[in-house]
């Protein structure tokens, strides 16, 4: 069981992910935008973050820069689960993985709930 912070701008998809993650025993807190996500992280003390990069006003990368600027969140694993196609993420892949500590880049249309759960479980099980 882990504290998962889900950052997902689409309310309907968010409900689906929350139900799936809760079903396998995780505690899920939720934010729909980058501003709320920082507050939610402060409150929930997440063990892992699942993040959509495409958000209104401040995007996921902006969120990550702020998130990583706090010492307590520098080692929290972040799984990106985005509608942005992998080819379009190429220019920022190095920054995401090396500088911002993204542990997995998932392409939302192709990733099932089971695959997302496996990623989350795998990351929180790591020592």
């Amino acid at each position, binding site marked *: 069981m882990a504290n998962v912070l889900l950052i997902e*701008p*689409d*309310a*309907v*998809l968010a*409900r*689906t*992910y929350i*139900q*799936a993650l809760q*079903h396998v025993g995780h505690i899920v807190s939720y934010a*729909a*935008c980058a501003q*709320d996500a920082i507050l939610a992280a402060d409150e929930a003390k997440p063990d892992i973050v699942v993040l959509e990069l*495409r*958000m*209104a*006003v401040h*995007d996921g990368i902006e969120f990550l820069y702020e998130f990583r600027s706090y010492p307590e969140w520098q080692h929290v694993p972040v799984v990106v689960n985005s*509608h*942005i196609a992998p080819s*379009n993420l190429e220019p920022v892949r190095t920054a995401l993985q090396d500088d911002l500590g993204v542990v997995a880049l998932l392409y*939302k*249309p192709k990733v*099932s*709930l*089971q695959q997302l759960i496996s990623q989350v479980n795998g990351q929180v099980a790591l020592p």
Partner: protein
Amino acid sequence: MQGDSATTSQETTQLLRSVAEQLKMPLSTIARQAELGQLTGDVSLTDLSAIRTHASAALTLVDCYLLGLQLIREQALLPLEPVSVSSLLVETAHELQAFAKQYDTTLELHIAGKYEPVMAHHAGLKSALLSLGYALLESYPVQQRGRMSLAVHRTPNGIVTGLYGDFEQLSSKAWRTALELQGKAPRPFESLSGNGAGLFVAEAILQAMDTKLRVGKHRKQQGLATTLQPSQQLSFV
């Protein structure tokens, strides 16, 4: 002529890219919802209403895109006829209600007073408003959710109809920039989470009715609307 054809091809390509990107949202929702019941072993968790409304939204976007594409390609104008804007708004609101509910938004219909028929293409105007509605509802900033209006009001320039909400950052400049960036940038509208494909599809259809979308206000809400001309013919009757 070659220049015109190149522009048309560029326009249609950009519109297609926007629509393809936008379609990922309803299709992902349908796929994940269908999976949820299977995963949990509790089929009642699968929200059939979400699947139905998102499938309708996707199909409407495809239909509207095809109409927009045809109009751009043929550089055609839709034939205008007297249309009752009030009844068209009632029909449109009826189709958008379930989708609005999925996004915790109440869609209000504001038709104050009586309006004479406007010169429009019934199916074209309805497609444009539906396309606009789905796009705005899906991208509505979470903090502002709660209420959106499908409305009509009269101005000295004509009868204005559109969708309004608490889109504080929506300005004429932002809309012009978005039109330039559509199909090129992942988020032409900084203040919306989606790529707004439906807005550009609506604009393409409205242009074929010799009108366009403009940023406007209605009862302190900000939105996108179009100005239609009253039918002179029926005014005399």
